[in-house]
Structures are given as structure tokens and as C-alpha cells.
């Protein structure tokens, strides 16, 4: 090509290039056809050789346990092999008691929260993850609550919920009604803020843990007062 550039007006090289192009295209077509044929003849690939296809959401209102809950379920979807049933937060205790007593969900695997600060329906998702030992089936419940709303504790149904709810209270600031001892668990009593909320800075806040500060900021750190300690 570098030889062609000084003499762009001559016809021959251009013709050559076009002919080459056509030949290349024909070769590529033949190759593609051969590859296609080879792919058709080849045995089916293992699933791990395929391009990954992420799981898609689908409706799961026909799931047995979801159907049994009838009008208590707002919506249900199936994603990655798991049914998530959204239920009304006010009725969470009824739903859980029904699922434990009637449907055999005797095991609370996990309970946690997700913060969606911008969402209209309510700021927090409270997630319950249930398991039943008889046939190893799992079901996820989701209750949506607003920032100022409280939700009933399920500690009376599954004892395991005790610390999980304390953790949600500690890290998200969700209040659980009728909880036997709703105290902070991972941070300390008097800590200012709820770390897993989206508006809590990742770098943390000044907790007054700087060495020998004269004044502890309000709400920061294990509060030490002068009263009673003596000068």
C-alpha cells in the first residue's frame, strides 16, 4: 500500500485491491459457513461453555405457599430459583404465624433489611428468609415500611429473630414492636446514626474516639461524663 500512495491515479492497484477484497469476502463467507456447519454437527456444549444468561424475573403467584396466603400477598416473583413474596407490613405477624403453624416453615434462616432512600412505597425492605426442614423448601418474604413506621417483631415465632432484629435496628434504625430487648448490637449504645443507611458516609463519622478530646461530640462514642466520676 505504501507504494500506491505516490501514484493514486493509476488504475491497476485499485482493481487489485477490489479483487482482493472480493476474494477475502468469499473466503470469509466460506469459513463462516464451514464454522456454522461444524457447530451444527458438534455435540451440544456444556452449560458452562455457553454465554451466561442471567436469570429473569417471573410471576410466582401460583406457588403453593404464596397461594395459601391468599390476599395477604401483594405480589410475588421468582428470580434465580427463589420466590419472593411481598406482604403487607401490618400483617407480618399473621403471615409468619400462618407460615410456621400451617405450612411448616420452622426455621428462620435470615432476616435483614435493604435501604431504598428514594423509593415512594417506603424506605426499607425487611427481608425474611424461611426454611422448612420437611422438604427443604425456602421462601423469602418482603415487607415494605416507611422511615417512621414500626414493624412487629417475629421473635415470638422464631427465637433466631432476636439478634437479627437487633442488628437491623442497630444498622438501619428500624424499630421492631414488642421486641424483648431492642438494643444496639454491633455498635455501642449512644452511637450516633445507623451505618448501613445509604446516607451514612462510608468513611464514618466522628465518634469522639480521637485521643483525649476535651469535649465529646453529642452522641459520639461511649459517653463519659464528669458527673459522679470525681475530679
Amino acid at each position, binding site marked *: 500500500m505504501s507504494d500506491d500512495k505516490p501514484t493514486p491515479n493509476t488504475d491497476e492497484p485499485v482493481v487489485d485491491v477490489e479483487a482482493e477484497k472480493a476474494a477475502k469476502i468469499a473466503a470469509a463467507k466460506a469459513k463462516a459457513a464451514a464454522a456454522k456447519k461444524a457447530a451444527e454437527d458438534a455435540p451440544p456444549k456444556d452449560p458452562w461453555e455457553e454465554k*451466561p444468561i442471567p436469570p429473569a424475573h417471573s410471576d410466582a403467584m401460583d406457588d403453593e405457599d404464596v397461594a395459601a396466603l391468599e390476599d395477604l400477598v401483594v405480589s410475588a416473583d421468582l428470580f434465580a430459583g427463589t420466590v419472593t413474596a411481598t406482604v403487607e407490613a401490618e400483617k407480618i405477624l399473621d403471615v409468619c404465624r400462618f407460615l410456621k403453624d400451617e405450612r411448616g416453615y420452622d426455621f428462620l434462616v435470615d432476616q435483614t433489611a435493604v435501604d431504598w432512600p428514594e423509593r415512594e412505597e417506603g424506605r426499607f425492605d425487611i427481608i425474611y428468609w424461611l426454611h422448612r426442614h420437611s422438604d427443604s423448601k425456602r421462601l423469602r418474604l418482603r415487607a415494605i415500611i416507611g422511615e417512621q413506621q414500626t414493624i412487629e417483631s417475629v421473635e415470638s415465632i422464631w427465637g433466631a429473630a432476636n439478634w437479627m432484629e437487633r442488628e437491623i435496628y442497630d444498622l438501619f434504625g428500624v424499630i421492631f414492636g414488642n421486641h424483648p430487648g431492642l438494643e444496639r448490637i454491633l455498635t455501642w449504645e449512644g452511637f450516633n446514626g445507623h451505618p*448501613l443507611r445509604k446516607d451514612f458516609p462510608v468513611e464514618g463519622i466522628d465518634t469522639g474516639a480521637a485521643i483525649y478530646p476535651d469535649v465529646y461530640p453529642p452522641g459520639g462514642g461511649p459517653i463519659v461524663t464528669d458527673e459522679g466520676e470525681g475530679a
Partner: protein
Amino acid sequence: MMNGPERPLFDVEEMEISFGPQHPATHGVLRLQMKLDGERIVEAKPIIGYLHRGTEKLFETMTFPACIPHTDRLDYVNAAHNNQGFCITMEKLLGISIPPRAAYIRMILAELQRLASHLVWLATHAVDIGAITPFFYTFRERDEILDLFEEYCGARLTLNTMKIGGLPFELPDGWLDRCAKFVDAFPSHIDEYETLLTTNRIWKKRTVGVGIISPEDAINMGLTGPPLRGSGVEWDIRKVFPYDRYDEVEFDVPTGTNCDTYDRYLVRIEEMHQSIRILRQCLEKLPEGPIMAKAPKVLRSPEGMVYGSVESPKGELGYFIVATEKGTTPYRCRVRPPSFVNLQALPQMVKGSLVADMMAVIGTLDIVLGEIDR
């Protein structure tokens, strides 16, 4: 004291004692606020959070693959299962299935890690109760396992040895032979530990009938892993929700009958035998092939919630990931730590028992504070 009122010879009042956080028998920085009536425990309240590092918050700021090294620091004697749990959850979310060779190597690493973790448990549990000798034996074998890890990935504790979609490294030359040699020798070492403990009269007096929890209570309190199996509930994630290629290997799930510390000890000893059984099958069946699936370089998630769990030596270790459409970081990543949930049952298990028995119960729950506090 000198001018105080006259006191009876023995104080009959309840005494409040803070046990820990700096106490060698608490396996880390666990603090127990105890009310004692003489030697009897009236109430024990665990206070945790001394090791809280905000790992779940940190996960939200980093890309999916960058989370993996942080999972090592959760249960720090058991890094392989932490990696595995996170990777299989992400693979579930992205719909990736991994090559068989990668799955088998993962299983080999995970079962070696289970042995290492159980050896740490056995050593510390025995030391807590007063038997110091097993420590030297178990740590000898644990070191061999850590040498194998070091040879494979360069790290001994925080392995960071799995990737979303497979594994980062191929096995070094001769590694499988050395692993097989270890696997062949290990059952005789288990017999050594058993000679020291299983029929030891002191060991039995300290563990039989201590820390009883009924199967109903164990399920109610959310116990998983050996504490649940010690109470007679046959339940193992590897059996009920097989991940990687656990459905292709044969192994039994040991269970206890008396629900006490001694049975949990027997369950874990038998689990070591079963791990060896799984390792033998994995080494035999290990297929050839690639070790990474065709995963995109930049992982972008679909919108949704996904939960994946593995059977860690402590119990069910789960990851719950909430992802947004085309996100590169988890919107929320919750770790379901088995130790956190298992520790919850401690007050119930030690109520009314002697203070010295509490050491046995803490040991038998096999807690790791890095995982509890996150």
C-alpha cells in the same frame, strides 16, 4: 472495706461479672456479662461488636470481584468457604456455570479448609477445657494444610483463591500428589486425637451432658452446622442444596443423639473423616479442562435479589446480594454468618450450669468473632 458493715462469711448475693473481651477462652473479643449465684450461672448475656469493621457497608462501595478479598476477613480461619459462598451467589445472580475442573478444585480447597478449621476448633476447645496436648498434634497437621494452600495461592490464611466463574490459578505441578499424600496420612492422625480424647475420663466428665440443647430449641434458635447436627437434626447444605459438584460425591452426614458437647465433638470428628472421603473422591474424579468460565470482564448484574449459601465448618454461611440493573457493585450485600446465629443460643445453653462449663459451651459452638461482628 475496713469500716464497712459486717458481712457474712459467704456472700449470698448474685454477683455480676464481665467475662472478656480480653480473655483467651472467648476465642476473640467476645464479652459475656454474667450474673452468678456462686459458681452457677444465672444469666449470661453476650456483648459483641468489638471487631465490627463495617464489611457489609464496604461491599457497597466496591465492584463484585473486589469484594472477594474482603470475605476472607470474615471467618478468618476459614477463608475458602467465604470465597466460595460469595462466588456461587454471584454465579447464581449472573447465570454463570463453572467448568467441572474448577468446581472440583474448589471442593478440594473447601474440604481442606474444613479440616483446617476443625483442627483449630479441636485445639482451642481442648485447651479451654484443660487438655493442652491435642493442640500440638492438630496444629502440626493444620500447618501441612496451610503449606498446601501457600503452594497453591501464596497465602496461608486469607486465601482469596476463587473468582466469579472459576478459579484464578491452575494447580502447581505435583500439588495433587502432595495433597493425596496428606489425605492418605490424615485418618491415622484423627485416630491420634481420638486416642487422646474420645475415651479420656476427664474429657468425658467435662463434656458429656454439658450445654444441652434440644432439637426443637436448636431449630427455633436458628442453629446450623455441627451444633444442629449434634442435636440429631440431619441437615447439611451440601446435601439439601448441593453447590459446585457436591451432588457427584458420596458422603454421610453424621448426627448426635444426646445433644451435648460430647456429641458435637463426635460429630465434628466424624465430619473430618467424611471430608477425607470427599477429598479422595475429588482427587480421583478431578477432570481435565479449563478453570474459568466465559465470564465478561466487567460484571454487570441484572436487577434482583439472590441468596446463596455454603456449608461452612461453622454452619450455613449465606450471602444475600441485592443488585440493581447493570450495576457493577452490590447495592446491598448481607452476610448470614453462622457463628452470629449460633452464639445466640449460648445464654440458653449455659443457664444454670457452672462457670467452667461455659468454656466448654463457647468452645463447642466454634465461634469466630470476625464473622460475628463483620
